């Protein structure tokens, strides 16, 4: 039987549990009643107070992060094995996808990175130009008014204390958010309540148990608890937390916003951090309109079935390269064919993709300017569209995408501007010499993360999170928009990603032989 909750040792026998079947697995959940949320919250706060007076939580977290990364890198680690067995069934993502994307990202969260987050060395130049973050593979720039910059510097000089943070986690990227926010809270000397996604309640509990193996004291500051929206205990938790951080769809975010507002009106000083629905786009400069780069783009499309906020919704290819935009689209579809053998699309996602593919086929049949390339067994489709060049169509998902030509990559900024409020990530295959000009333009249209093509589904430590600095947003409000480029040298990173994919391709051939 699997656990869908985690509690500090002392609390473990204090609550009733219930067993439910989810996708063929028996999962044990807490059955909380009135008063239980208060009990858990008070315990976590008390443990935090004790831990602060005895040992530094923050420092221990940095050391623990390294050990956790080692554990989860080990393919023989039992919890990793369990996760790889269970998560594909619960999420519908293939096991290899979870291994290559989720696990490789979560083991990047190490002590050196957390140290940078805790004490960012932000000089004035970061507001003037993209500046490298020492020790990380990221460049960053802050956009905001003079007043906002002063306010930010002031907040940074006297960080407030936060006792308890509630994190509401999404179901689309298994493992990443749960593990990341758990460590972020501890890094800020705060205890954490994690509400895992309904569809996949297992990973947060597994990771918390790992934490308990590595450092029992830190595990005393964490609880993984599930409840349904509107339950009595929901209000109880809101009566004790200082911050709520929600990552999810529009409805989840709206509901949390309403709850925060309700409690603020009652005089509770809760802060809300909201990470709602976003769009991504992939941009390919003419210098990189190459077959091997089309493979990188295909990898980004397949990642998490395009359900990540950063996933590309459309691909823009600059005209004048070795491959024409149409040829590039065809190469993406070809790459998706072999990638689909490594990352087969589950029936569940194929069914979701089908209506979109049919829609593309209908469009393609009706227009000479739209050509549709359907991937193996209907596991996605790529449409080359020369008709709707001037508009961004972020409506496709589940390995279904449109590729459109663009005269100059800088034009993309104008095209996506109507969606500024919802934009987040640009996956780019652009020469180093052109990236800063492009990043400045995209920042004006809401893009806050610029990732290298071929690593869009693998966030880089040090990146901004929806324009906020991870962790610090839990402590104070700021309207500075942080934009990051997840590479110090684009040409080098693209080369590395091509090599990474070449290795992956070997896996395909070895498995098919």
């Amino acid at each position, binding site marked *: 039987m699997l656990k869908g909750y985690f509690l500090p040792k002392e609390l473990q026998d204090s609550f009733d549990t219930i067993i439910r079947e989810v996708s063929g697995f028996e999962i044990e959940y807490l059955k909380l009643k009135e008063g239980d949320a208060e009990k858990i919250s008070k315990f976590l706060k008390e443990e935090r107070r004790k831990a602060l007076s005895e040992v530094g939580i923050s420092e221990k977290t940095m050391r623990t992060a390294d050990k956790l990364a080692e554990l989860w890198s080990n393919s023989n680690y039992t919890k990793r094995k369990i996760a790889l067995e269970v998560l594909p069934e619960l999420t519908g993502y293939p096991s290899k996808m979870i291994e290559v994307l989720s696990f490789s990202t979560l083991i990047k969260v190490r002590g050196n990175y957390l140290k940078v987050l805790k004490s960012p060395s932000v000089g004035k130049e970061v507001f003037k130009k993209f500046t490298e973050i020492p020790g990380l593979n990221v460049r960053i720039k802050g956009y905001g008014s003079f007043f906002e910059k002063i306010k930010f510097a002031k907040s940074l000089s006297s960080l407030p204390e936060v006792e308890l943070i509630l994190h509401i986690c*999404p*179901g*689309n990227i298994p493992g990443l958010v749960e593990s990341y926010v758990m460590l972020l809270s501890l890094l800020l000397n705060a205890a954490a309540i994690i509400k895992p*996604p*309904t*569809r996949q309640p297992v990973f947060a509990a597994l990771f918390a148990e790992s934490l308990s193996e590595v450092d029992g004291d830190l595990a005393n500051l964490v609880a993984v608890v599930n409840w349904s929206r509107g339950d009595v205990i929901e209000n109880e938790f809101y009566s004790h937390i200082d911050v709520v951080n929600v990552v*999810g*769809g*529009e*409805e*989840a975010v709206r509901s949390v916003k309403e709850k925060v507002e309700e409690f603020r009106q009652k005089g509770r000083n809760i802060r809300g951090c909201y990470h*709602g*629905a*976003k*769009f*991504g786009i992939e941009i390919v400069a003419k210098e990189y309109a190459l077959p091997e780069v089309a493979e990188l783009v295909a990898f980004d499309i397949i990642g998490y*079935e*395009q*359900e*990540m*906020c950063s*996933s590309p*919704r459309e691909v823009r290819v600059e005209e004048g390269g070795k491959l024409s935009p149409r040829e590039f689209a065809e190469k993406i579809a070809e790459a998706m064919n072999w990638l689909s053998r490594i990352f087969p699309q589950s*029936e*569940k996602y*194929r*069914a979701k993709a*089908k*209506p979109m*593919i*049919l*829609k593309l*086929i*209908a*469009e393609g*049949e*009706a*227009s000479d300017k*739209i050509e549709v390339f*359907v991937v193996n067994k*209907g596991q996605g489709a790529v449409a080359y569209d020369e*008709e709707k060049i001037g508009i961004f169509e*972020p*409506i496709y*998902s589940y390995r279904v995408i449109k590729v459109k030509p663009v005269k100059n990559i800088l034009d993309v900024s104008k095209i996506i501007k109507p969606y500024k409020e*919802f934009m987040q990530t640009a996956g780019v295959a652009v020469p180093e010499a052109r990236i800063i000009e492009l990043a400045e333009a995209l920042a004006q249209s809401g893009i806050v993360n610029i990732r290298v093509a071929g690593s869009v589904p693998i966030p880089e430590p040090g990146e901004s999170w929806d324009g906020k600095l991870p962790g610090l947003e839990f402590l104070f409000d700021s309207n500075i928009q942080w934009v990051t480029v997840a590479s110090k040298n684009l040409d080098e990173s693209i080369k590395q990603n091509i090599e990474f994919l070449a290795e992956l391709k070997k896996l395909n051939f070895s498995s098919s032989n």
Partner: protein
Amino acid sequence: MQQLTLTSSLNYLLKKENLWRPREKFEPFLEEIILRMHRFYYERSAIYRRVCEIENVSERAKIDDLFKVMLVDKIFKSYPTEYPEKEPEKFLSWLNKIMTKPLKVRIEPQKSLQSFLDKLSGYIWLSYSSGTTGRFSFIPRDEKTVEYCIKSYSEAAVAISGDYVRKMHFILALPKKTHLFISWIPKEVAERISGKVTILLNQVSADIVRARTKPPTCFSEKMKASLIGVLGNIMKSQLIKKLYREVKKAVEKGEEVIVFGSMPVMYAFCKKLLERGERLELPGRSIVVTGGGFKLEKGVSLEDFRRMLNEALGIPAPERHVDGYGMCECNALFYSCVEGGEKHIPPWIKPVLLDEELNPLPEHGRQTGRFAFFDPLAQSYPGFIITGDKVTINWNGCSKCSREGPVIESIERVKSEEGRGCALVLGKVLGE
């Protein structure tokens, strides 16, 4: 033995008596017709054939394979232009890829959508249904399909209520001239059944419907939408006044009538009567028929509505309130029976419930899934369609009447999954 022609086979199926014949008897016959229609679509519809190729379903496929090539209802709104009237060539090129018989017609750009539809109606009957996005689904019906559609609706209507309706006076709270499917088909059916029909509105143009349903994108569209909103309210109050006049006349004459209107119109009508402390008890076996889904004021339940019908018009439910479930893409309506209120699926349509992975669910007991259907009456477009509705079907049939075949017990829209895909939820915001 010579094989029946498709036309005679369909005519044999399309009879009200067949609602009382055991489904098992019809199933092989219906499936044979569906297979013939598959071959027909395969040969003639470019889009259908392309889907078959992708799914590896050949022209000689078996019935069990056909669920793989069902088209989603969104296909009918996948035309490549926002304004078909401005770019008729583009629109017609799309239409021809869906249709089983290409239209050889050239239409010049038109000032309004309505005039475009009017021009086209000389060649094909293009009816539409509106969603909340203002992007219509357009269904092309040739003469044969129009005839089958009207016959299917009429036969089922008589089967569900009784032959006596043929003598009744139909009062339709609808426009006389429209391409809006939900308004067009009741008028045709009423004329087919009884011929004694009073239609309360003259015309509702497609442009007005579009302006009412399409979210405005600029200031001028906003202004237009609010102006049309005001006009719409005036039109609604006029419609209710006319309905009052006609119903009152019937009550005074003691004439049995069938009153048809959308639920919101009938609700507003009953509300008005009750507010005025008035009751117009409809004579004898009069019936109120509603359609178009249950979309009432917030907090008003179906039970509330039925209570009002009874209080204002003396119409008890389900005995004299018939509600229909249907869609623009389908040539059959699933009427609620007067005995038990269950929605009956006529034997000329093969319903299918699909699971999350779009595989068919078993056809026994009570099942809930995404509603899909094989509609062999569709001659001018592929009639194998997956809808966006989540439906519960009781395959054991109706427990309250002697009609055979499965019944629909509940209907809701398929919900998009909250919290899973960040962008998908946005897709919903964008109305896709």
